Protein backbone atom coordinates (compact mmCIF):
# COMPACT_ATOMS: atom_id res chain seq x y z
CA UNK A 1 0.00 0.00 0.00
CA UNK A 2 1.46 3.35 -1.02
CA UNK A 3 -0.22 5.37 1.67
CA UNK A 4 -2.93 5.22 4.29
CA UNK A 5 -6.47 5.99 3.27
CA UNK A 6 -9.59 6.56 5.27
CA UNK A 7 -12.98 5.71 3.77
CA UNK A 8 -16.34 7.08 4.89
CA UNK A 9 -19.83 6.39 3.54
CA UNK A 10 -22.97 8.34 4.30
CA UNK A 11 -25.86 6.17 3.12
CA UNK A 12 -29.61 6.64 3.02
CA UNK A 13 -32.23 7.63 0.46
CA UNK A 14 -32.40 10.32 -2.21
CA UNK A 15 -33.43 13.73 -0.87
CA UNK A 16 -31.78 13.39 2.56
CA UNK A 17 -28.89 15.67 1.61
CA UNK A 18 -26.26 12.95 1.78
CA UNK A 19 -24.19 14.40 -1.03
CA UNK A 20 -24.40 17.89 0.46
CA UNK A 21 -23.15 16.85 3.89
CA UNK A 22 -20.37 14.76 2.34
CA UNK A 23 -19.33 17.82 0.32
CA UNK A 24 -19.26 19.91 3.51
CA UNK A 25 -17.02 17.36 5.19
CA UNK A 26 -14.84 17.16 2.08
CA UNK A 27 -14.53 20.98 2.08
CA UNK A 28 -13.52 21.02 5.72
CA UNK A 29 -10.92 18.30 5.16
CA UNK A 30 -9.58 20.06 2.07
CA UNK A 31 -9.05 23.34 3.93
CA UNK A 32 -7.08 21.48 6.58
CA UNK A 33 -4.73 20.01 3.98
CA UNK A 34 -6.10 16.53 3.27
CA UNK A 35 -6.60 15.10 -0.21
CA UNK A 36 -10.20 14.06 -0.68
CA UNK A 37 -12.24 12.25 -3.32
CA UNK A 38 -16.00 12.42 -2.92
CA UNK A 39 -18.22 10.22 -5.07
CA UNK A 40 -21.87 9.34 -5.15
CA UNK A 41 -24.33 6.66 -6.12
CA UNK A 42 -27.92 7.63 -6.73
CA UNK A 43 -31.07 6.53 -8.51
CA UNK A 44 -32.78 8.42 -11.35
CA UNK A 45 -35.66 9.28 -8.96
CA UNK A 46 -35.06 12.63 -7.26
CA UNK A 47 -36.65 11.54 -3.95
CA UNK A 48 -36.33 8.10 -2.43
CA UNK A 49 -34.28 5.23 -3.72
CA UNK A 50 -30.92 4.10 -2.38
CA UNK A 51 -28.32 6.82 -2.33
CA UNK A 52 -24.88 7.14 -0.83
CA UNK A 53 -22.00 9.52 -0.82
CA UNK A 54 -18.49 8.25 -0.21
CA UNK A 55 -15.32 10.03 0.88
CA UNK A 56 -11.82 8.70 0.40
CA UNK A 57 -9.31 10.72 2.40
CA UNK A 58 -5.56 10.56 2.02
CA UNK A 59 -2.49 12.64 2.73
CA UNK A 60 -1.48 12.21 -0.89
CA UNK A 61 -3.39 12.15 -4.15
CA UNK A 62 -6.08 9.47 -4.07
CA UNK A 63 -5.43 6.73 -6.66
CA UNK A 64 -8.73 4.80 -6.68
CA UNK A 65 -11.41 7.29 -5.64
CA UNK A 66 -14.19 4.84 -4.72
CA UNK A 67 -14.81 3.01 -1.46
CA UNK A 68 -13.29 -0.45 -1.15
CA UNK A 69 -13.08 -0.91 2.65
CA UNK A 70 -15.10 1.49 4.79
CA UNK A 71 -13.69 2.81 8.05
CA UNK A 72 -16.88 4.72 8.90
CA UNK A 73 -20.47 4.17 7.83
CA UNK A 74 -23.36 6.51 8.57
CA UNK A 75 -26.80 4.98 7.99
CA UNK A 76 -29.69 7.41 7.62
CA UNK A 77 -32.02 4.75 6.22
CA UNK A 78 -32.24 0.96 6.42
CA UNK A 79 -32.10 0.87 2.62
CA UNK A 80 -28.34 1.61 2.82
CA UNK A 81 -27.60 -1.41 5.02
CA UNK A 82 -27.47 -4.17 2.44
CA UNK A 83 -25.16 -2.53 -0.10
CA UNK A 84 -22.88 -0.97 2.54
CA UNK A 85 -22.27 -3.45 5.37
CA UNK A 86 -20.25 -5.87 3.20
CA UNK A 87 -17.82 -3.02 2.48
CA UNK A 88 -17.22 -2.25 6.16
CA UNK A 89 -13.79 -3.04 7.61
CA UNK A 90 -13.83 -5.40 10.61
CA UNK A 91 -14.19 -3.24 13.71
CA UNK A 92 -15.34 -0.26 11.64
CA UNK A 93 -17.43 2.58 13.03
CA UNK A 94 -21.18 2.54 12.29
CA UNK A 95 -23.50 5.43 13.16
CA UNK A 96 -27.13 4.49 12.56
CA UNK A 97 -30.33 6.50 12.97
CA UNK A 98 -32.57 4.95 15.65
CA UNK A 99 -35.81 5.82 13.83
CA UNK A 100 -34.98 5.14 10.16
CA UNK A 101 -32.51 2.32 10.64
CA UNK A 102 -33.76 0.64 13.82
CA UNK A 103 -32.38 -2.84 13.35
CA UNK A 104 -28.89 -3.93 12.36
CA UNK A 105 -27.64 -7.44 11.75
CA UNK A 106 -24.91 -8.94 13.87
CA UNK A 107 -21.43 -8.04 12.73
CA UNK A 108 -17.98 -7.07 13.88
CA UNK A 109 -18.35 -3.32 14.10
CA UNK A 110 -18.55 -0.49 16.63
CA UNK A 111 -22.15 0.65 16.56
CA UNK A 112 -23.54 3.97 17.73
CA UNK A 113 -27.31 4.00 17.44
CA UNK A 114 -28.20 7.68 17.68
CA UNK A 115 -31.47 9.65 17.40
CA UNK A 116 -30.20 11.74 14.48
CA UNK A 117 -33.48 12.37 12.66
CA UNK A 118 -35.43 12.68 15.92
CA UNK A 119 -33.05 15.45 17.03
CA UNK A 120 -33.51 17.13 13.65
CA UNK A 121 -37.31 17.03 14.03
CA UNK A 122 -36.96 18.54 17.53
CA UNK A 123 -34.86 21.34 16.03
CA UNK A 124 -37.68 22.09 13.59
CA UNK A 125 -36.97 20.17 10.39
CA UNK A 126 -36.20 16.56 9.54
CA UNK A 127 -34.28 17.96 6.58
CA UNK A 128 -31.32 18.79 8.83
CA UNK A 129 -30.81 15.16 9.92
CA UNK A 130 -27.87 15.08 7.52
CA UNK A 131 -26.15 17.89 9.43
CA UNK A 132 -26.86 16.26 12.80
CA UNK A 133 -25.26 13.11 11.37
CA UNK A 134 -22.30 15.15 10.15
CA UNK A 135 -21.71 16.53 13.66
CA UNK A 136 -21.99 13.10 15.25
CA UNK A 137 -19.63 11.59 12.69
CA UNK A 138 -17.07 14.35 13.19
CA UNK A 139 -17.21 13.93 16.97
CA UNK A 140 -16.97 10.14 16.94
CA UNK A 141 -14.45 9.70 14.15
CA UNK A 142 -12.32 12.71 15.09
CA UNK A 143 -11.42 13.28 11.47
CA UNK A 144 -11.52 17.04 11.16
CA UNK A 145 -11.31 20.27 13.08
CA UNK A 146 -14.64 21.54 14.32
CA UNK A 147 -13.87 25.10 13.22
CA UNK A 148 -13.20 23.96 9.65
CA UNK A 149 -16.43 21.98 9.56
CA UNK A 150 -18.45 24.91 10.91
CA UNK A 151 -16.90 27.08 8.24
CA UNK A 152 -17.82 24.57 5.53
CA UNK A 153 -21.40 24.32 6.79
CA UNK A 154 -21.68 28.13 6.75
CA UNK A 155 -20.25 28.30 3.23
CA UNK A 156 -22.65 25.73 1.80
CA UNK A 157 -25.83 26.81 3.60
CA UNK A 158 -28.39 29.28 2.26
CA UNK A 159 -29.18 32.14 4.71
CA UNK A 160 -32.63 30.87 5.64
CA UNK A 161 -31.15 27.55 6.83
CA UNK A 162 -27.99 28.87 8.49
CA UNK A 163 -29.21 29.01 12.11
CA UNK A 164 -30.89 25.61 12.06
CA UNK A 165 -27.91 24.01 10.29
CA UNK A 166 -25.46 25.35 12.87
CA UNK A 167 -27.78 24.16 15.66
CA UNK A 168 -28.00 20.77 13.97
CA UNK A 169 -24.22 20.52 13.73
CA UNK A 170 -23.86 21.38 17.43
CA UNK A 171 -26.58 18.87 18.35
CA UNK A 172 -24.78 16.21 16.31
CA UNK A 173 -21.50 16.95 18.09
CA UNK A 174 -23.25 16.60 21.45
CA UNK A 175 -24.79 13.26 20.44
CA UNK A 176 -21.41 12.03 19.32
CA UNK A 177 -19.55 13.25 22.38
CA UNK A 178 -22.07 11.75 24.79
CA UNK A 179 -22.42 8.45 22.96
CA UNK A 180 -21.19 5.17 24.36
CA UNK A 181 -21.07 2.09 22.14
CA UNK A 182 -24.22 -0.03 22.35
CA UNK A 183 -22.41 -3.01 23.78
CA UNK A 184 -25.19 -5.50 23.08
CA UNK A 185 -24.82 -4.93 19.36
CA UNK A 186 -21.11 -5.57 19.14
CA UNK A 187 -20.39 -8.99 17.78
CA UNK A 188 -17.29 -10.61 16.51
Amino acid sequence: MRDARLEIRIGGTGGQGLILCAKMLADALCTTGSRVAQSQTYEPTSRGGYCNSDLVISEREVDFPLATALDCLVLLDRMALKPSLPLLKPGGLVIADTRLCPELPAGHYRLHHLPLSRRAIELGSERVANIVALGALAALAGICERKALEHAVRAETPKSFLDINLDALAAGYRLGEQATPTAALIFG
Partner: protein
Amino acid sequence: MNAVEQALSPKAALRLISGNHACALAAVAAGCRFFAGYPITPSSEVAERLSQLLPEVDGVFVQMEDEIASIAAVIGASMGGVKALTATSGPGFSLKQENIGYAAGAEIPCVIVNVMRGGPSTGMPTRPAQGDIMQSRWGSHGDYPIIVLAPASVREIYTETLRAFDLAETCRTPVVLLYDQVIAQLTETVDLADAKDLRNAERKWASGPRETYQPYATGEDGIPAMSRPGAGYRVHTTGLNHAENGFPTQNPEAVARNLGRLLTKLDRHREAIDSWQAIGCADAEVVIVAIGISARAATRALDLARARGVRLGLFRPVTLWPFPETALREATKNARAVLVPEMNAGQLSLEVERILGGKRVDAIHRYNGEPITPAEIAERAEALAKEAR
Protein backbone atom coordinates in the same frame (compact mmCIF):
# COMPACT_ATOMS: atom_id res chain seq x y z
CA MET B 1 -12.82 40.01 -10.30
CA ASN B 2 -15.55 37.94 -11.96
CA ALA B 3 -16.45 34.34 -11.08
CA VAL B 4 -14.08 32.92 -13.69
CA GLU B 5 -11.06 34.94 -12.56
CA GLN B 6 -11.88 34.14 -8.97
CA ALA B 7 -12.16 30.45 -9.75
CA LEU B 8 -8.78 30.51 -11.45
CA SER B 9 -6.97 32.75 -8.97
CA PRO B 10 -3.81 31.27 -7.41
CA LYS B 11 -5.42 31.43 -3.99
CA ALA B 12 -8.00 28.94 -5.16
CA ALA B 13 -5.44 26.68 -6.82
CA LEU B 14 -5.86 23.79 -4.40
CA ARG B 15 -9.52 23.15 -4.17
CA LEU B 16 -12.36 20.69 -4.35
CA ILE B 17 -14.07 20.55 -7.69
CA SER B 18 -16.21 18.06 -9.58
CA GLY B 19 -15.23 16.63 -12.96
CA ASN B 20 -18.04 18.30 -14.86
CA HIS B 21 -17.37 21.65 -13.20
CA ALA B 22 -13.66 21.31 -14.04
CA CYS B 23 -14.68 20.85 -17.68
CA ALA B 24 -16.83 23.99 -17.64
CA LEU B 25 -14.09 26.03 -15.98
CA ALA B 26 -11.44 24.82 -18.42
CA ALA B 27 -13.69 25.55 -21.40
CA VAL B 28 -13.94 29.18 -20.36
CA ALA B 29 -10.21 29.31 -19.65
CA ALA B 30 -9.57 27.89 -23.14
CA GLY B 31 -11.53 30.76 -24.67
CA CYS B 32 -14.83 28.95 -25.29
CA ARG B 33 -17.53 31.59 -25.56
CA PHE B 34 -20.48 29.55 -26.84
CA PHE B 35 -22.31 26.61 -25.36
CA ALA B 36 -25.44 25.00 -26.73
CA GLY B 37 -26.80 21.90 -25.09
CA TYR B 38 -29.71 19.94 -23.79
CA PRO B 39 -29.42 18.73 -20.19
CA ILE B 40 -28.93 15.00 -19.68
CA THR B 41 -27.61 13.02 -16.72
CA PRO B 42 -24.74 12.69 -15.92
CA SER B 43 -23.39 15.56 -18.01
CA SER B 44 -25.81 18.31 -16.93
CA GLU B 45 -23.39 19.98 -14.50
CA VAL B 46 -21.24 21.08 -17.44
CA ALA B 47 -24.19 23.06 -18.80
CA GLU B 48 -25.31 24.21 -15.36
CA ARG B 49 -21.91 25.73 -14.54
CA LEU B 50 -21.47 27.28 -17.98
CA SER B 51 -24.87 28.94 -17.71
CA GLN B 52 -23.32 30.88 -14.81
CA LEU B 53 -19.81 31.38 -16.18
CA LEU B 54 -20.40 32.29 -19.84
CA PRO B 55 -22.55 35.41 -19.29
CA GLU B 56 -19.77 36.76 -17.05
CA VAL B 57 -17.27 36.69 -19.91
CA ASP B 58 -19.69 37.99 -22.56
CA GLY B 59 -20.20 34.47 -23.85
CA VAL B 60 -23.43 32.87 -25.01
CA PHE B 61 -25.23 30.01 -23.29
CA VAL B 62 -28.22 28.47 -25.05
CA GLN B 63 -30.36 25.62 -23.83
CA MET B 64 -31.58 24.22 -27.14
CA GLU B 65 -34.68 22.18 -27.90
CA ASP B 66 -32.70 18.95 -28.26
CA GLU B 67 -29.28 17.41 -28.80
CA ILE B 68 -29.35 17.62 -32.59
CA ALA B 69 -30.05 21.33 -32.53
CA SER B 70 -27.32 21.75 -29.90
CA ILE B 71 -24.50 20.35 -32.02
CA ALA B 72 -25.88 22.23 -35.05
CA ALA B 73 -25.75 25.49 -33.09
CA VAL B 74 -22.22 24.71 -31.94
CA ILE B 75 -21.09 24.12 -35.53
CA GLY B 76 -22.75 27.38 -36.57
CA ALA B 77 -21.09 29.31 -33.75
CA SER B 78 -17.71 27.87 -34.70
CA MET B 79 -18.22 28.85 -38.33
CA GLY B 80 -18.93 32.29 -36.92
CA GLY B 81 -15.43 32.29 -35.43
CA VAL B 82 -16.19 31.39 -31.81
CA LYS B 83 -14.79 28.49 -29.81
CA ALA B 84 -17.83 26.34 -29.06
CA LEU B 85 -18.81 23.41 -26.86
CA THR B 86 -21.69 21.03 -26.29
CA ALA B 87 -22.06 18.36 -23.60
CA THR B 88 -24.20 15.27 -23.52
CA SER B 89 -24.47 11.65 -22.53
CA GLY B 90 -25.82 8.31 -23.77
CA PRO B 91 -28.78 8.82 -26.13
CA GLY B 92 -27.77 12.45 -26.65
CA PHE B 93 -24.42 11.38 -28.08
CA SER B 94 -26.22 9.09 -30.53
CA LEU B 95 -28.42 11.98 -31.68
CA LYS B 96 -25.38 14.17 -32.34
CA GLN B 97 -23.62 11.68 -34.59
CA GLU B 98 -24.82 12.96 -37.97
CA ASN B 99 -23.66 16.48 -37.27
CA ILE B 100 -20.37 15.26 -35.76
CA GLY B 101 -19.77 13.76 -39.22
CA TYR B 102 -20.67 17.11 -40.75
CA ALA B 103 -18.17 18.90 -38.51
CA ALA B 104 -15.50 16.33 -39.40
CA GLY B 105 -16.22 16.56 -43.15
CA ALA B 106 -16.55 20.32 -43.33
CA GLU B 107 -13.64 20.67 -40.88
CA ILE B 108 -15.40 22.82 -38.31
CA PRO B 109 -13.56 22.97 -34.96
CA CYS B 110 -15.76 22.09 -31.99
CA VAL B 111 -15.64 20.18 -28.72
CA ILE B 112 -18.22 17.58 -27.70
CA VAL B 113 -18.29 16.28 -24.14
CA ASN B 114 -19.75 12.79 -23.81
CA VAL B 115 -20.16 11.48 -20.27
CA MET B 116 -20.56 7.73 -20.51
CA ARG B 117 -23.48 6.16 -18.65
CA GLY B 118 -25.06 2.72 -18.89
CA GLY B 119 -26.47 1.77 -22.28
CA PRO B 120 -27.82 0.84 -24.80
CA SER B 121 -30.66 3.32 -25.38
CA THR B 122 -31.59 5.23 -22.19
CA GLY B 123 -29.78 2.48 -20.25
CA MET B 124 -28.82 3.47 -16.71
CA PRO B 125 -28.76 7.27 -16.48
CA THR B 126 -26.96 7.54 -13.14
CA ARG B 127 -24.58 4.58 -13.45
CA PRO B 128 -21.15 4.59 -15.09
CA ALA B 129 -20.15 2.73 -18.25
CA GLN B 130 -17.42 2.88 -20.88
CA GLY B 131 -19.57 1.68 -23.73
CA ASP B 132 -19.03 4.59 -26.13
CA ILE B 133 -15.36 3.89 -26.89
CA MET B 134 -16.12 2.65 -30.39
CA GLN B 135 -19.04 5.02 -30.98
CA SER B 136 -16.83 8.01 -30.24
CA ARG B 137 -14.56 6.91 -33.10
CA TRP B 138 -17.00 5.38 -35.59
CA GLY B 139 -20.44 6.75 -34.63
CA SER B 140 -21.09 8.81 -37.74
CA HIS B 141 -21.36 7.28 -41.20
CA GLY B 142 -18.59 7.16 -43.77
CA ASP B 143 -14.86 7.55 -43.25
CA TYR B 144 -13.75 10.55 -41.23
CA PRO B 145 -11.03 11.61 -38.81
CA ILE B 146 -11.78 12.56 -35.22
CA ILE B 147 -9.86 13.11 -31.99
CA VAL B 148 -11.12 11.58 -28.74
CA LEU B 149 -9.55 12.42 -25.36
CA ALA B 150 -10.17 10.21 -22.31
CA PRO B 151 -9.31 11.93 -19.00
CA ALA B 152 -9.22 9.79 -15.83
CA SER B 153 -9.26 12.38 -13.05
CA VAL B 154 -10.85 15.71 -12.27
CA ARG B 155 -7.55 17.46 -12.83
CA GLU B 156 -7.10 15.72 -16.14
CA ILE B 157 -10.61 16.71 -17.24
CA TYR B 158 -9.42 20.27 -16.73
CA THR B 159 -6.16 19.89 -18.66
CA GLU B 160 -7.68 17.73 -21.42
CA THR B 161 -10.52 20.20 -21.94
CA LEU B 162 -7.88 22.88 -22.55
CA ARG B 163 -6.11 20.52 -24.94
CA ALA B 164 -9.40 19.59 -26.66
CA PHE B 165 -9.94 23.21 -27.70
CA ASP B 166 -6.32 23.57 -28.80
CA LEU B 167 -6.51 20.47 -30.98
CA ALA B 168 -9.95 21.30 -32.37
CA GLU B 169 -8.75 24.74 -33.41
CA THR B 170 -5.32 23.83 -34.75
CA CYS B 171 -6.44 20.65 -36.57
CA ARG B 172 -9.86 21.99 -37.60
CA THR B 173 -11.67 18.95 -36.31
CA PRO B 174 -14.34 17.96 -33.83
CA VAL B 175 -12.79 16.70 -30.58
CA VAL B 176 -14.71 14.44 -28.21
CA LEU B 177 -13.98 14.55 -24.48
CA LEU B 178 -14.95 11.08 -23.31
CA TYR B 179 -15.22 10.30 -19.62
CA ASP B 180 -17.42 8.13 -17.43
CA GLN B 181 -20.07 9.04 -14.86
CA VAL B 182 -17.75 8.33 -11.93
CA ILE B 183 -15.10 10.83 -13.02
CA ALA B 184 -17.76 13.33 -14.17
CA GLN B 185 -19.49 13.50 -10.79
CA LEU B 186 -16.41 12.86 -8.69
CA THR B 187 -15.31 15.76 -6.50
CA GLU B 188 -11.56 15.76 -5.94
CA THR B 189 -8.91 17.94 -4.38
CA VAL B 190 -7.05 19.31 -7.37
CA ASP B 191 -4.14 21.64 -7.86
CA LEU B 192 -4.73 23.79 -10.92
CA ALA B 193 -1.83 26.18 -10.30
CA ASP B 194 0.31 24.88 -13.16
CA ALA B 195 -2.61 23.90 -15.41
CA LYS B 196 -3.24 27.51 -16.40
CA ASP B 197 0.00 27.76 -18.32
CA LEU B 198 -1.09 25.40 -21.08
CA ARG B 199 -1.12 27.04 -24.48
CA ASN B 200 -4.25 28.64 -25.83
CA ALA B 201 -4.06 27.96 -29.55
CA GLU B 202 -5.78 29.92 -32.26
CA ARG B 203 -7.32 28.65 -35.46
CA LYS B 204 -5.43 29.16 -38.71
CA TRP B 205 -7.22 32.10 -40.28
CA ALA B 206 -7.17 33.00 -43.97
CA SER B 207 -4.81 35.77 -45.00
CA GLY B 208 -3.48 36.92 -48.35
CA PRO B 209 -5.26 37.81 -51.57
CA ARG B 210 -9.02 37.28 -51.57
CA GLU B 211 -9.23 36.48 -55.29
CA THR B 212 -7.14 33.30 -55.09
CA TYR B 213 -8.44 32.03 -51.69
CA GLN B 214 -9.71 28.45 -51.78
CA PRO B 215 -11.43 27.40 -48.54
CA TYR B 216 -10.13 23.82 -48.62
CA ALA B 217 -6.72 24.29 -50.21
CA THR B 218 -3.89 23.41 -47.83
CA GLY B 219 -0.15 23.38 -47.51
CA GLU B 220 2.09 20.70 -46.02
CA ASP B 221 0.21 20.68 -42.70
CA GLY B 222 -3.00 19.49 -44.38
CA ILE B 223 -5.06 22.07 -42.48
CA PRO B 224 -7.05 24.56 -44.58
CA ALA B 225 -7.11 28.18 -43.42
CA MET B 226 -10.57 29.26 -42.35
CA SER B 227 -12.09 32.54 -43.37
CA ARG B 228 -13.12 34.81 -40.55
CA PRO B 229 -16.73 35.85 -41.15
CA GLY B 230 -16.83 39.30 -42.70
CA ALA B 231 -13.19 39.16 -43.76
CA GLY B 232 -14.25 39.29 -47.40
CA TYR B 233 -13.18 35.84 -48.54
CA ARG B 234 -15.59 33.81 -50.62
CA VAL B 235 -16.55 30.64 -48.78
CA HIS B 236 -18.87 27.72 -49.37
CA THR B 237 -19.42 25.06 -46.73
CA THR B 238 -21.24 21.78 -47.33
CA GLY B 239 -21.63 18.26 -46.05
CA LEU B 240 -21.33 17.03 -49.62
CA ASN B 241 -17.93 15.90 -50.80
CA HIS B 242 -16.25 19.02 -52.02
CA ALA B 243 -13.25 20.22 -53.97
CA GLU B 244 -10.68 22.77 -52.80
CA ASN B 245 -13.11 25.56 -53.70
CA GLY B 246 -15.65 24.24 -51.20
CA PHE B 247 -18.29 23.41 -53.79
CA PRO B 248 -19.81 19.91 -54.13
CA THR B 249 -18.16 17.50 -56.50
CA GLN B 250 -18.43 13.84 -57.47
CA ASN B 251 -15.39 14.01 -59.70
CA PRO B 252 -13.43 10.89 -58.62
CA GLU B 253 -10.02 12.59 -58.73
CA ALA B 254 -11.21 15.63 -56.78
CA VAL B 255 -12.96 13.48 -54.19
CA ALA B 256 -9.99 11.14 -53.79
CA ARG B 257 -7.63 14.11 -53.45
CA ASN B 258 -9.69 16.08 -50.94
CA LEU B 259 -11.10 13.19 -48.92
CA GLY B 260 -7.65 11.58 -48.95
CA ARG B 261 -6.19 14.76 -47.50
CA LEU B 262 -8.95 14.88 -44.86
CA LEU B 263 -8.46 11.25 -43.83
CA THR B 264 -4.72 11.64 -43.35
CA LYS B 265 -4.61 15.15 -41.91
CA LEU B 266 -4.37 14.03 -38.27
CA ASP B 267 -1.43 11.74 -39.15
CA ARG B 268 0.62 14.87 -39.79
CA HIS B 269 -0.02 16.14 -36.25
CA ARG B 270 0.33 13.01 -34.15
CA GLU B 271 3.10 14.54 -32.04
CA ALA B 272 0.66 17.12 -30.69
CA ILE B 273 -2.31 14.76 -30.61
CA ASP B 274 -0.88 11.61 -29.01
CA SER B 275 -0.87 11.45 -25.23
CA TRP B 276 -0.59 8.50 -22.86
CA GLN B 277 0.65 7.47 -19.45
CA ALA B 278 2.81 4.39 -18.91
CA ILE B 279 3.58 3.26 -15.35
CA GLY B 280 6.01 0.47 -14.55
CA CYS B 281 5.70 -1.10 -18.01
CA ALA B 282 9.39 -1.77 -18.70
CA ASP B 283 9.71 -4.74 -16.33
CA ALA B 284 6.03 -5.68 -15.98
CA GLU B 285 4.93 -9.28 -16.42
CA VAL B 286 1.44 -8.09 -17.33
CA VAL B 287 0.54 -4.66 -18.66
CA ILE B 288 -2.98 -3.37 -17.96
CA VAL B 289 -4.55 -1.12 -20.60
CA ALA B 290 -7.44 0.98 -19.31
CA ILE B 291 -9.13 4.38 -19.36
CA GLY B 292 -11.20 6.45 -16.92
CA ILE B 293 -12.34 4.91 -13.64
CA SER B 294 -11.02 1.49 -14.74
CA ALA B 295 -7.54 3.03 -15.08
CA ARG B 296 -7.85 4.54 -11.59
CA ALA B 297 -8.67 1.06 -10.27
CA ALA B 298 -5.70 -0.35 -12.19
CA THR B 299 -3.35 2.22 -10.61
CA ARG B 300 -4.23 0.79 -7.21
CA ALA B 301 -4.09 -2.78 -8.52
CA LEU B 302 -0.42 -2.17 -9.38
CA ASP B 303 0.32 -1.58 -5.69
CA LEU B 304 -1.81 -4.51 -4.51
CA ALA B 305 0.01 -6.90 -6.88
CA ARG B 306 3.46 -5.54 -6.08
CA ALA B 307 2.84 -6.26 -2.38
CA ARG B 308 2.37 -9.90 -3.42
CA GLY B 309 5.46 -9.95 -5.63
CA VAL B 310 3.81 -9.59 -9.04
CA ARG B 311 5.03 -6.81 -11.33
CA LEU B 312 2.20 -5.12 -13.22
CA GLY B 313 2.33 -2.12 -15.52
CA LEU B 314 -0.34 0.30 -16.66
CA PHE B 315 -0.72 1.81 -20.11
CA ARG B 316 -3.38 4.51 -20.16
CA PRO B 317 -4.23 6.15 -23.48
CA VAL B 318 -5.12 9.78 -22.66
CA THR B 319 -5.69 10.39 -26.35
CA LEU B 320 -7.94 7.45 -27.12
CA TRP B 321 -8.39 8.14 -30.86
CA PRO B 322 -6.28 8.12 -32.88
CA PHE B 323 -4.98 5.36 -30.62
CA PRO B 324 -1.31 5.80 -29.61
CA GLU B 325 -0.38 2.42 -31.10
CA THR B 326 3.40 2.94 -31.28
CA ALA B 327 3.49 3.81 -27.59
CA LEU B 328 1.34 0.79 -26.71
CA ARG B 329 3.66 -1.56 -28.64
CA GLU B 330 6.66 -0.07 -26.86
CA ALA B 331 5.02 -0.28 -23.42
CA THR B 332 4.03 -3.92 -23.84
CA LYS B 333 7.10 -5.27 -25.65
CA ASN B 334 8.53 -6.98 -22.55
CA ALA B 335 5.19 -8.11 -21.08
CA ARG B 336 4.02 -11.69 -21.38
CA ALA B 337 0.37 -10.72 -21.50
CA VAL B 338 -1.97 -7.74 -21.49
CA LEU B 339 -5.16 -7.25 -19.47
CA VAL B 340 -7.91 -4.82 -20.51
CA PRO B 341 -10.48 -4.03 -17.80
CA GLU B 342 -13.36 -2.01 -19.25
CA MET B 343 -16.99 -1.22 -18.43
CA ASN B 344 -18.52 -2.61 -21.62
CA ALA B 345 -18.87 -5.92 -23.45
CA GLY B 346 -15.49 -5.61 -25.23
CA GLN B 347 -14.36 -2.50 -27.11
CA LEU B 348 -10.94 -1.27 -26.00
CA SER B 349 -9.75 -4.89 -25.94
CA LEU B 350 -10.56 -5.18 -29.68
CA GLU B 351 -8.26 -2.27 -30.50
CA VAL B 352 -5.52 -3.58 -28.21
CA GLU B 353 -5.76 -7.04 -29.86
CA ARG B 354 -5.58 -5.41 -33.28
CA ILE B 355 -2.46 -3.43 -32.40
CA LEU B 356 -0.64 -6.18 -30.53
CA GLY B 357 -1.62 -8.99 -32.96
CA GLY B 358 -0.36 -12.29 -31.52
CA LYS B 359 0.25 -11.21 -27.94
CA ARG B 360 -2.06 -12.66 -25.31
CA VAL B 361 -4.79 -10.14 -24.48
CA ASP B 362 -7.30 -10.94 -21.73
CA ALA B 363 -10.10 -8.67 -20.60
CA ILE B 364 -12.49 -7.93 -17.78
CA HIS B 365 -15.80 -6.84 -19.28
CA ARG B 366 -18.36 -5.31 -16.96
CA TYR B 367 -21.69 -3.76 -17.97
CA ASN B 368 -23.87 -3.86 -14.82
CA GLY B 369 -23.16 -0.28 -13.74
CA GLU B 370 -20.66 -1.29 -11.02
CA PRO B 371 -17.09 -0.06 -11.48
CA ILE B 372 -14.38 -2.72 -11.69
CA THR B 373 -12.44 -2.80 -8.41
CA PRO B 374 -8.67 -2.71 -7.87
CA ALA B 375 -8.84 -6.13 -6.18
CA GLU B 376 -10.56 -7.72 -9.20
CA ILE B 377 -7.96 -6.33 -11.59
CA ALA B 378 -5.06 -7.37 -9.34
CA GLU B 379 -6.44 -10.88 -8.92
CA ARG B 380 -6.99 -11.43 -12.64
CA ALA B 381 -3.65 -9.89 -13.61
CA GLU B 382 -1.77 -11.99 -11.05
CA ALA B 383 -3.42 -15.17 -12.35
CA LEU B 384 -2.57 -14.15 -15.89
CA ALA B 385 1.07 -13.47 -14.91
CA LYS B 386 1.37 -16.93 -13.36
CA GLU B 387 -0.23 -18.66 -16.37
CA ALA B 388 2.10 -16.86 -18.74
CA ARG B 389 5.29 -17.63 -16.76
